[in-house]
Structures are given as C-alpha cells and as structure tokens.
C-alpha cells in the first residue's frame, strides 16, 4: 500500500533521514520505534508532505506522491495525527471533527454522510459525544488525543499516520487508545503507521516494526522478532541483559 524508497530528508543542513526504505501492506499496523531525534516524526511528515523529501520516492498504491502538497495527500486517503495532538483549542469538539472532514465538504459530500461518520467517531470514543460542545483546549490530554484521532478519521483515511499517541498520557488511557486502534483495523481495515516511544505497547499492537537510529533504519522484522531481539530489549524495552 505504502512504499518509501531511499528517502532522504533535510532540515536545512541537518540530514534527518538517510536512505530510509520501508513498506506497509494493506490492513497492517506497523510501528516505528526509536529514541528522540531518530527521525520518526520526520518520516511521517515526509509521507504527509509537510516536509518534502529531497530525494527518494514515496509510493501510495503504486502512485508517485513524493512531491505532492499536504492537501493532495489527504485527498488520496492518508491522514496524519500530528505529534502533541494539535487539536484546535479555541474550537469545540464538534468543530474540530468537522474540520477533519474539510475536504469532503469541499468535494460536496452530503452533510448526512459526514454526520454519520461523526456518530461512528462518537461510538469509538463515547467521551467525545458527552463533550461535543466543549472547547477542545479545556479537555484533558487523553481526551484531546482521542479528539485528534477522531478528527483524522473524519477524512475517511485508508492509511492513518499516528505520531506518539501515548505521549504524556496515563497507562490506562494509552490502553484505551490502543484498543480503539486495534478495533479500527479489525472493523474498517484501516492501515496504520504508528510512531511510538512506548515500544512495548506499540510492538504488542503492531504486526511489524522498524527500529530507527539517527535517521537510519537499523532493524526491521515482525513484532515478535523485535521483542525477542537482544538489542531492542536492552535499548527500548528496558530489560538489561543481566548483570554478571
């Protein structure tokens, strides 16, 4: 479904992604794990067109999408949940969700079908329905994360890019959010690329994973393989190899 070929991305002079190659098959959940500054977010921003790659190719369903602006990418069915949630704080929950369907409104889709999808989002996150009229900025971090995911879903994406949905949230809420992601995959067949620092939770949910270090992919494999890998265990899962 999605294929990155030898992607190189720069921030000015900083070489943030070095020859990154990865793929996602339809219906998969794939996770990117790595330390701060490894380039996880940059990969997502490159795919969504926010920071265009300087070389390499991004293919979505075998179409070139490398140099497209973000709005075209969303049109094709890729939605990003940006890092740090970035809900529109002065706007209500409902307005935030409506904005998620911005392009569908522009394309002249009926309000009824968009309403139906909002009901779907409320089914996934009942809390949001209770807070429909509340300003997004007055909600807790977990609620804002749910809103950010709901907002991205309003675009009816085929591929969802999630940037650290567990950031700064209580373990119980992280569990809840991951449960919903799993449900999304099973019920809607949504493909998900998940960036996480919480490697343990991410690998439990995902089918496969890539490990990123200073802009390079250093390891890839199924979640089970990665969880068993000694280096991954030591560096990302907090298990020491045992002192002598």
């Amino acid at each position, binding site marked *: 479904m999605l294929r990155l070929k030898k992607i190189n991305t720069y921030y000015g002079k900083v070489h943030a992604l070095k020859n990154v190659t990865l793929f996602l098959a339809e219906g998969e959940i794939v996770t990117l794990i790595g330390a701060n500054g490894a380039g996880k977010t940059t990969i997502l921003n490159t795919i969504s067109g*926010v920071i265009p790659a300087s070389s390499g190719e991004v293919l979505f369903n075998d179409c070139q999408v490398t140099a497209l602006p973000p709005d075209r990418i969303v049109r094709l069915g890729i939605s990003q949940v940006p890092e740090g949630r970035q809900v*529109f704080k002065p706007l209500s929950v409902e307005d935030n969700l409506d904005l998620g369907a911005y392009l569908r*409104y522009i394309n002249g889709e009926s309000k009824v079908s968009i309403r139906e999808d909002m009901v779907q989002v409320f089914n996934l996150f009942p809390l949001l329905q209770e807070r429909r009229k509340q300003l997004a900025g007055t909600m807790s971090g977990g609620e804002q994360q749910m809103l950010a995911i709901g907002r991205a879903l309003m675009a009816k994406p085929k591929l969802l890019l999630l940037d650290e949905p567990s950031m700064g949230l209580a373990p119980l809420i992280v569990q809840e959010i991951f449960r919903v992601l799993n449900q999304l995959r099973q019920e809607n067949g949504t493909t998900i690329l998940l960036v996480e620092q919480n490697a343990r939770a991410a690998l439990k949910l995902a089918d496969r994973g890539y490990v990123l270090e200073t802009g390079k992919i250093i390891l890839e494999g199924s979640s089970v393989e990665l969880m068993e890998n000694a280096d991954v265990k030591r560096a990302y899962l907090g298990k020491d190899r045992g002192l002598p």
Partner: protein
Amino acid sequence: MNRDLIKFLAFATLILATPQVLSGSYLMNVLLFVGIHTMLAIGLNLLLGYAGQISLGHAGFFGLGAYLSGILTATYGWNPWLAMPLAASVVGGLAFLIGFPILKLKGHYLAMATLGMGIIMYIIFNETIGLTGGPSGLSGIPAISIGSLAFDSDQKNFYLIWSFTLGMTLLTLNLTNSRIGRALRAVHDSEVAAQVLGINARLLKVQIFALSAVISSIAGTLYAHTMTFISPTSFGFNFSVELLTMVVIGGLGSIYGSFLGAALLTLLPEFLRGAQDYDIIIYGALLMVMVKYMPGGLVRGVPDLFRKLLKKRGARHA
C-alpha cells in the same frame, strides 16, 4: 443562524435610525468615517483575528482603492460605479500576487514585510505626481450618483456608505460562520494541524489577504467620492497602525468588535477635543487601560464589566 440574523437586523436598524436623531449635526460627518473605518477594520480583522496574520500595510490598499477610482473618475471621466469594481479587482489581484511570497513569513517578519509594502505604496502616491497630484493631493473627484440622485450631502452619503458597510458585515458574518471561517481559525491555531487535515493553508491565507484588500479598496473608493479630495497623508503608516488598534481594541475575531473599535477610535478624538492639547495623552492612556483590563477587546470586555457590576450590586442587596 436565526439568532445571528436577528442580531444583525437589530444592529442595522440601530445604525440606519441614527440620522433621525443626529440629522444636520456635525456628528453626521463623523459617522461617515465610522462607517468607512468599520469596513476597513472588518477587512483587517478577517486577516488578523480569524486567520491570525498581521498586516501593517492595509492603509496602502485603502489608498490604492481611493486613488484608482479618484484618478479614473476625476482625470478620465469614468463613472464611479465602474471605477469601484475595477479598482477592487486591481487591488485584489495585486494583493494576491504580493500575498504568495510574503504570507510565507510569520510573526514579526510578516509585520516587517507588510510594513514595507505599505511604505512603498505611500511613496508611490507621493511621487507619481502626474497621476496622483503628489503631496498636494488629487481634487475634483465627483460624488457617486444613481441616476439623478447624487450622494453629495453627509446625510445621503451616510446611507450610501452604511449600506456598503452593513452589506460587508452580513457577508463576513456568513463567511466566518461557514466552513471557511472554521478553516481560518484552524490555520490561526495550528498551521501544521490544519495542513494535515487537507486545508491548503497557504492558499487560504493568500485568499483572505486578497479579500481583505478588496474590502479596503472599496472603502477607499467610497472615501474618495465622499471627500472629493484625497492626499497621501491619509494613507500612511500611522493609519495602518490606527486600523490595527481598532481591530485589537474592538476584539480580535469579532465582526461587531470591529465596529466597536472603529466607532470608539473615530469618535473619541471628537469628544476629547475639549481637552485641547491634552487630548492625545488621554487618548493614549485610555487605550492602555483598555488593553490591560479588556484583553478580549470591547466586544467581550464591556459585557463582562456589566456582569461584574450587577454581581456587586446583587451582593450588596443580599
């Protein structure tokens, strides 16, 4: 929406009734300026209050609209009704072209770029003497007329200007309550998040910049034909700052706030005239006090003040 419409109708009735009370007085003339300033403040508010982009050069668009229709009508004998849309399209097109490169900038840098834009236009008004008359101004601009009805008195101009201002108010109220208004506020709050939802933030910013320039240009045309004389000093940097102050004092992101800000800043100097040389000090002090105690602008601050006063009275009675 219905409630908004009732609010608007009440506002329009109130405005259109004022000539009944003030007919013939000097204040009628001041109210013409309130109308023009309201239009300008609404235009700038779309940009600053909704889309979150600053402009320190809007007086330039205002001046360009005034000069274009002034020159076309006074020098070339055009009908003002033709000059107005032509001026507005030229100004809108120009803003669109300027907007693409400069709206890439943010914050202070955008302020600097728009400041430069305003200054360039001011210099052009001053230096193209053959066209604009330079510093001594352009005179002999005809009044606007419909058939045999010429808008040549304060009272007639009041209705002309305010029908434009009210029309603009209704238009912008609709715009800001629509999908586009939501998208603007989204861009204001977080451009990245707006982008990843598929909002073409850059294009939207440029479009709103152009729209606000068009509104300023129409205000400029009306100004030129009401005054029948224009000179560059009305379109300088000071006026850009005054417009900015109107928008902030009135309330960012509120159309009625723009009216309040424009009305206050236009009427206040008239009422302070009694204080003679001290008027500018009082004026400045009032602005400081208002910004300190009503950071949300008059449109939010005044109702808050009333609520507080009522509470205090209620507490005393209890």
